């Protein structure tokens, strides 16, 4: 049994490559649970962070500092009456949230949390990802149409207009990053998500900094387009609450509505993962080539533990600072227990890091590697998640014709220019040689 498990843990292949469906299923379950939990955590974090931007406290009642608020919300939404308007197209109304949800969850198949920590490594990974995540817009359009109501219809129209104007610029930015995979010494181009990260390691540079500032510009174009892609502020015209009451999901309530929210947040994480994979070195820790060697490995492998230790410390400080009123007694115990759980996780992570440092081939070393990969990946993604919240707190909403104008007249030329310049800079030596031969001949 242990041998059997070890053969998987030690395998450098993803379950998809190895052709093992059971192992793939387990991965899918883990990812599905993980993403759902991440969405809940993101929900809480967004409300808290947004509240602090806006000099409020945010959720404070359900659990210590509102920690259980997402769970309370989920229960409330699940128990709510499920209303389908009589005038709506019943079947399409029913299937619309599922389209969005399935689209945003399917892309996780190819997201590489580590060199073998993905369900499958498709050779067209990034293409698959862009294609499937764009299907999310279909869910919105269909939902707006099926509601048979004016506001959702306008929301759906806006969403489709938005998608058309941003997918192109987004795609071109992605192409310039893919092109970079083939522009290193001894590297070949690839569309596979895992090999894109590996080629960044080979070339010794995150594509964000490659051909500076070309990579950076492409990244910025993508970062703007991905906000539009996920219908988030300042591009949330499809659900602009001050204009279209709730936009495409005006007629939705209860569980169906929550599916839309789940899809939206899952899509946010998914597109952030694309950005991290393409430009920020995916699962790689900072400076894997420069600061190599077992000592550096060990130091960097302490980071997950340190993060959890810091979170535990936060929780403990919060426990101590809570007022000594009887109302806060349960909350105090809850937050303290939460801190203890975090501290325990930190301890386990430290133990794994130390055990993995001492022996290179054991199961602990494999575990340590896996944890490191996932940790750095999640850390990079969470930076994007914070940016999403920050945008929402700071900026007014664009008008949809302005968004289209920016998409077509600004972003598209920029990304096209970056693409061409990347190609020219990438083969500058060949061009130079060709010119020299021409001059000589």
């Amino acid at each position, binding site marked *: 049994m242990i041998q059997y498990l070890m053969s998987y843990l030690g395998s450098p292949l993803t379950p998809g490559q190895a052709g093992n469906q059971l192992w793939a299923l387990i991965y899918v379950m883990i990812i599905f649970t993980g993403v759902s939990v991440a969405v809940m955590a993101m929900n809480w974090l967004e409300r808290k962070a*947004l509240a602090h931007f*806006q000099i409020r406290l945010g959720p404070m009642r359900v659990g210590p500092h509102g920690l259980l608020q997402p769970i309370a919300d989920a229960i409330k939404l699940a128990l709510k009456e499920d209303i389908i308007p009589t005038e709506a197209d019943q079947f399409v109304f029913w299937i619309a949230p599922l389209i969005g949800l399935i689209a945003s969850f399917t892309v996780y198949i190819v997201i590489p949390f580590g060199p073998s920590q993905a369900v499958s490594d498709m050779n067209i990974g990034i293409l698959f990802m862009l294609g499937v995540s764009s299907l999310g817009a279909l869910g919105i359009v269909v939902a707006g149409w099926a509601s048979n109501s*004016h506001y959702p219809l*306008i929301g759906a*129209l806006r969403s489709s207009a938005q998608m058309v104007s941003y997918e192109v610029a987004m795609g071109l930015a992605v192409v310039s990053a893919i092109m970079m995979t083939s522009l290193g010494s001894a590297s070949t181009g690839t569309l596979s998500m895992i090999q894109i990260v590996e080629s960044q390691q080979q070339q010794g540079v995150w594509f964000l900094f490659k051909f500076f500032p070309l990579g950076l510009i492409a990244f910025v174009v993508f970062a703007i387009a991905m906000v539009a892609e996920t219908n988030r502020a300042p591009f949330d015209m499809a659900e*602009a609450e*001050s*204009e279209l009451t709730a936009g495409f999901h005006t007629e939705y309530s209860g569980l169906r509505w929550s599916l839309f929210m789940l899809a939206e947040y899952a899509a946010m994480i998914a597109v952030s993962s694309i950005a991290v994979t393409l430009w920020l070195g995916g699962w790689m820790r900072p400076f894997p080539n420069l600061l190599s060697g077992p000592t550096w490995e060990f130091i960097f492998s302490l980071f997950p533990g340190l993060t959890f230790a810091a979170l535990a410390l936060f929780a403990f400080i919060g426990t101590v600072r809570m007022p000594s009123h009887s109302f806060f007694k349960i909350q105090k115990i809850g937050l303290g227990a939460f801190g203890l759980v975090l501290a325990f996780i930190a301890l386990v992570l430290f133990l794994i890091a130390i055990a993995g440092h001492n022996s290179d081939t054991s199961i602990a070393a494999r575990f340590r590697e896996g944890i490191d990969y996932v940790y750095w990946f999640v850390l990079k993604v969470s930076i994007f998640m914070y940016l999403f919240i920050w945008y929402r707190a700071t900026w007014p909403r*664009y*008008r949809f014709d302005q968004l289209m104008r920016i998409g077509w007249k600004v972003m598209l030329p920029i990304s096209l220019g970056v693409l061409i310049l990347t190609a020219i800079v990438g083969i500058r030596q060949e061009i130079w040689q060709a010119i020299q031969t021409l001059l000589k001949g």
Partner: protein
Amino acid sequence: MNELKDNALPNAVVSSSANSAAHLDLDTPDKPYLASNELIINMGPQHPATHGVLRVILKLDGEKVLGTECVIGYLHRGVEKIAENRTYTMFNPYVDRMDYVAAVSNGLGYCQAVEKLLNVEAPPRANYIRVILTELNRIASHQLWLGTHALDIGAMTPLFYTFRDREEILKIFEKYCGARLTTHAFRIGGCQYETYAGFEKEVKNFLAFVAPKIDEYEELLTTNRIWLERTKNVGTISAEDAIALGVTGPVLRASGVKWDIRKAQPYANYADFDFEVPTGKNGDTYDRYLVRMVEMRQSLRIIEQAVNGIPEGPIMAKVPKVIKPAVGEIYHSIESPKGELGYFIVSDGSTQPYRLRVRPPSFVNLQALDVMVRGQLVADVVAVIGTIDIVLGEVDR
């Protein structure tokens, strides 16, 4: 307006249900395969951006606005009729309920109108207190406008900042007269209450507190690209149109007309103070935003001068216990935060007004909505409703 009402409404309602395929008459060759219709949608009376219970019927071509019609009256309480059955003193608190975010201004207008009818002058100290409180109220009103206007355009955060700072003004009101919103601060002939101990210090503290806060709002919005795109050349109204429609207040001034009743027909003792009347050039939403931001700063200037120069003396003029004006009529208007707020009172010599008519700035300014949004997009309707700064309590009365 009438054209929209008579022709378009009954016919153009779009139905996108599954049954409508039957109406699509695919066989007739002269009809286009995909028929397109104008869309009539209802904005309000329950809509997050209509600031209360305004209902706007929009005629849309896609997202383009072809015409609008405002349906008002959801908050009608018959304030003017009530006045005919109340004595002059009893009616005073009712005016606070019209423009409830600028209750102090409303009270000032009413009290001064009755004073004019009675030929009474409020003593100087009362006038100073009145000016301080009305100008504070102008800032509070503009803060509420800014927060909600920004929220309509999608910026959530300024709302909370403005409400935080408005709170300080409401605290001063509460300490002065016991109420925060419907203040009933003034009486016919002056003020009922002497200022509380530390009033001047608190007002001065507030001035020092709020000036950097106004910078903070401007930092978030004034040079924000998205804010500029959303407000520049949106809801433009020319000076001629604005005058023709009777638009007053910041909306008129943003179109370039320097008309401020505080300067044009000074009341209370506004003639004593040194302040400027900001005007815009283009008459668009952005100019109206800038005008109101400058107005807040000018109000601070007025308050500062008033607090420093506040004289000692009585706060009530000699007013008979039972107010019985001579037969006659009077019109008095003041510059409320939203525009010209006028009271027309007809007296038949009894203790109750024979007829009282209010000229509410919100109601008159709202007429400009159609001119401003025609040809613009749905998102602009929301921005324009916000920029006109209506309070439905005042529109419907």
